[in-house]
């Protein structure tokens, strides 16, 4: 569904990450599921898929990474109107698990916050491994929103080795999992495709269920245009995803881009 909307809050979280609060100017929008996303329309610029980082009372929070023209235009909006389409995707409700390890790369952290809030309501625990390239891209996940449970463990990795673990999030995830055998029964990786691929392969022999939060080109969000297909699989990100089991999309992970 299309909704008119307005930016009601903006915050710079780190060198590259920005938080936006978006008020939906129309009644009757339903609460999203974790990992559902919206399409943010910046008129005259672009339509950007953005994960729901939080939601309450018709107000959505998103976390935007500065990349090209579209994300920059979205970041520049303050008290401006925009269009919101959504919520799209099947979402993911991993409520059958005991303890989840969420492995995020860069802005892949966005859906973590909403998942954490919902998981807490369901009595499921979520821990976080978060990797970024440079330490200046980091912010304190606990400072953000009230969705992060005290019980949550947070592990940080930087590729410039300025903070935390020195290396990629996938490596750090692999290490903490080996140091804590049996602690997690589900891993969800979210971020660049390289990260997803590495998590799927590095952790394939741990026996833990492995899911990834994918990104493809989303043009419509409703399952009509077919641009989001996870070739060579007959799967649409916007209908069947964006979260899939590693082993259901092996061909896609092997083939796909490097983003």
């Amino acid at each position, binding site marked *: *569904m*299309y909704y*008119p*909307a*307005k930016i009601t809050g903006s915050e710079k979280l780190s060198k590259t990450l920005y938080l936006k609060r978006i008020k939906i*100017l129309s009644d009757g929008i339903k609460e999203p599921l974790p990992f559902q996303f919206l*399409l943010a*329309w910046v*008129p*005259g610029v*672009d*339509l950007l898929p953005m994960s729901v980082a939080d939601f309450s009372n018709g107000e959505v929070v998103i976390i935007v990474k500065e990349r090209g023209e579209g994300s920059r235009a979205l970041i520049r909006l303050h008290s401006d*109107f*925009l*269009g919101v*389409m959504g919520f799209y995707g099947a979402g993911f409700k991993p409520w059958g698990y005991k303890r989840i390890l969420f492995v995020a790369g860069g802005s892949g952290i966005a859906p973590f916050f909403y998942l954490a809030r919902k998981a807490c309501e369901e009595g499921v625990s979520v821990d976080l491994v978060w990797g970024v390239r440079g330490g200046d891209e980091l912010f304190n996940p606990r400072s953000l929103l009230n969705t992060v449970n005290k019980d949550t463990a947070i592990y940080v990795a930087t590729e410039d080795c300025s903070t935390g673990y020195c290396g990629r999030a996938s490596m750090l995830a692999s290490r903490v999992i080996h140091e804590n055998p049996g602690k997690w029964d589900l891993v969800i990786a979210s971020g660049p495709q390289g990260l997803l691929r590495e998590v799927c392969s590095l952790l394939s022999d741990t026996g833990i269920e492995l899911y990834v939060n994918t990104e493809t080109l989303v*043009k*419509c*969000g*409703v*399952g*009509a*245009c*077919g*641009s989001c*297909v996870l*070739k*060579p*699989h*007959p*799967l*649409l990100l916007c209908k069947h995803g964006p979260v899939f089991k590693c082993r259901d999309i092996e061909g896609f992970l092997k083939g796909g881009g490097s983003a």
Partner: protein
Amino acid sequence: MLETSVAGLRLKHPVMNASGILGSEPEHLEILAKQGFSALVSKTITLNPREGYPPPIIVELRNNGLLNAVGLANPGAGVIPVLAGKARELGKPLILSIGGSSVEEFVKLAELASEASVDAVELNLSCPHAEGYGLELGSDPMLVYRIAKDTVSVASIPVIAKLGLTDRVIESAGKALEAGVKALTLINTVKAMSIDVYTLKPVLSNRYGGLSGPPIHPIAVRVVYDVYREYRAEIIGVGGVSSWMDVAELVLAGARAVQVGTALIWNENIVDEVLDGLHKWLIDLGYNSLMDLVGIAVM
């Protein structure tokens, strides 16, 4: 009970997908096949690849309709044998929708479709929002005649003409039949627009789009009825089907088969629901075959 045939294709039941909701890639055909359609219809394929319009290309409207201006995005004619191969693998008849901006393009595409041995081609003479394509051609009955005539003459497979809502749709239908098309697909989307009332701009990047879904169903019924009444032609009814009753109305108006587009977006079980409903309907009415009901509302 629900078997039907149209344009020489024998079908297990009357429900196909409508062109353009998926259908430009082999993976799309797989997804569509899983829904249970009796035949698959491709996205409209053009000679050269088309990027289509930039997003927004689709808007879900407050009135339960959908507005789209995808801009005929497709990978170009190279995909035709790929789609044909996939459909064979899936064991489904394939109707290839083709679109051109000139008679020559339609002819070339019909040749490629024949070579790839798809089961039929559907001429897109009705997309209301792609400049130089679709409805701009389909609203001129003489142009419909020329395109239909020339494609029929080169095609070794059945040709279907897809027409949209225009003042002279009955005339265009007549011309297409005269030119030798085996069936007519009626209708495409209706030209429309949605404006965001805070950003003060049309939402689609193309500004104009095509309205589909429940809002256009009674319009589709009217057009099918009119064309059937005039020619008793073979018709595939499209437009706003979201329940078995919508299909039943199109059948009574004269459609031997139907296509479902927008409803796919909101209901994954649409095909099964429609087939169940039609089955019960025939029993309630005491009919043995859907074909006996085709066009019987037409006096």
